[in-house]
């Protein structure tokens, strides 16, 4: 037992909370992998179609929304691709932030029993979300083939966009989770905010329908507007995002992640007191 000679934990000698958390999550990376695997495997375990639902759900929503809105937004070229690409990005964001909050607030049982890096479940939620999103890109590619959208090299840029989206999602999830631990009403409130937020973001409608007078502030102050736009550009428009859009998206994502990580790991010690 060599390790027992060294002090593993000392409450009087703790470094920066954010760095300690980062080290912790690296040490527990196998746990993160197991949690992602568990989430994916168990989600559809009892259903016949199993994991196929991850692809069928966005596809079904796309079909319904296309039937409802295609005449209204007939000006939009390739509406099914437009809406599906937006939906995939949005679904990842909304489902993952909600999962992070639920894990932190309601799934805290384990945190009250054993030591785990406090971000374990948040990071694994993002992992699960990324796997689901990767799967739901399959029906998107099928739709693109069917509707005659040509493939572009710009699509190779999509993985980088996913990193930005994941960073923003994790950061925001951590910020709201921290609030929700101290004020449980926040998690209920967040669901309503999400709904409003989705309609404020051009997911199902083209951004041109918002009058110029409002759209400038409405869109520029909305982080998800930029991220959805960056996500759509290589897929729907078949172009690489211009550097300005990309810069805005990157700065927003990284800043949110850094703030979220610092706030959450700083407050994480107190979570156990709010049992």
């Amino acid at each position, binding site marked *: *037992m060599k*390790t027992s000679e060294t002090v593993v934990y000392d409450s009087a000698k703790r470094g920066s909370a954010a760095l300690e958390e980062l080290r912790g999550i690296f040490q527990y990376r196998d746990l993160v992998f197991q949690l992602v695997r568990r989430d994916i495997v168990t989600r559809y375990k009892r259903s016949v179609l199993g994991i196929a639902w991850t692809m069928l759900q966005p596809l079904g929503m796309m079909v319904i929304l296309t039937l409802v809105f295609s005449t209204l937004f007939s000006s939009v070229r390739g509406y099914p691709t437009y809406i599906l690409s937006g939906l995939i990005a949005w679904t990842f964001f909304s489902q993952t932030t909600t999962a992070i909050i639920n894990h932190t607030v309601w799934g805290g049982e384990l945190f009250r029993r*054993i030591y785990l890096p406090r971000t374990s479940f948040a990071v694994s939620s993002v992992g699960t979300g990324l796997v689901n999103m990767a799967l739901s890109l399959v029906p998107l590619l099928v739709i693109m083939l069917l509707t005659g959208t040509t493939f572009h090299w710009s699509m190779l840029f999509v993985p980088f966009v996913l990193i930005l989206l994941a960073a923003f999602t994790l950061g925001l999830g951590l910020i709201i989770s921290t609030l929700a631990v101290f004020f449980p009403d926040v998690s209920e409130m967040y669901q309503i905010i999400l709904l409003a937020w989705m309609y404020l973001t051009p997911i199902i409608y083209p951004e041109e329908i918002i009058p110029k007078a409002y759209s400038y502030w409405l869109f520029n102050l909305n982080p998800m507007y930029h991220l959805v736009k960056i996500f759509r550009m290589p897929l729907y428009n078949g172009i690489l995002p211009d550097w300005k859009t990309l810069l805005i998206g990157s700065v927003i994502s990284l800043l949110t992640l850094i703030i979220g990580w610092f706030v959450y790991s700083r407050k994480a010690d107190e979570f156990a007191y709010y049992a």
Partner: protein
Amino acid sequence: MLETTNKPDTVIHLENISVRYRLPGERIQTFKEYAIRFVQRRIQFKEFHALRDVSLDITKGDLFGIIGPNGAGKSTLLKVISRVLIPKDGRVWIRGKVSPLLELSAGFHPELTGRENIYINGTLLGHSRGEIEEHIDDVIEFAELGAFIDAPLRTYSSGMVARLGFAASTTWKPEILILDEVLSVGDEAFQRKCKVRMESFRAEGTTTIFVSHSMDTVLALCNRVAWLDHGTVQAVGPPSEIIEAYRQAQ
């Protein structure tokens, strides 16, 4: 860390630990309430002392018992040792990896097989995948689950779940093992097996912290006992002495 040079065998060191919880009734639940109270300058809380000025040293290889009535602070003490609760007053340091064995159902998923649950459980305790692969056969053997190991956990009896839990968290020869009233599960034969394993751990240098209401078990297993009441340590010493004093005080 001057103390360590004096007592090289200490693996758990608690120094003037106090833990205060805010009473649940006083917790501010909403922004509105918070805002109103903030304006009224009424943000203050009633506090409940779960632990008061607790100092303890636990030596390597100890089978250390903690006794006391409900609400004495036993669970809080275990949380401080297992790094779940970071004390705001006092200092705690631990040498070695702490493996808690609490009711493990929390870490198990009913839809996953016993084998898959061993992986999750192992990683929750901080083991790497490689370490788990190395030991998984021992876990399965000790848990006596046979072919059930590849069946979903929801098909298990509660005794089988308990056996899997004990096997999954004790196969790695923990450096510091925390047992919180768990030996009451399983049939007699399995309980005997658990006790044998605990004894063998002790022989190999594992430090065990054992919380129980069963004085007979504490007397039979432990070599040192702390009596906790109202969040303070009443006495520490040999089991027979402390249990006698505890019984008289009741």
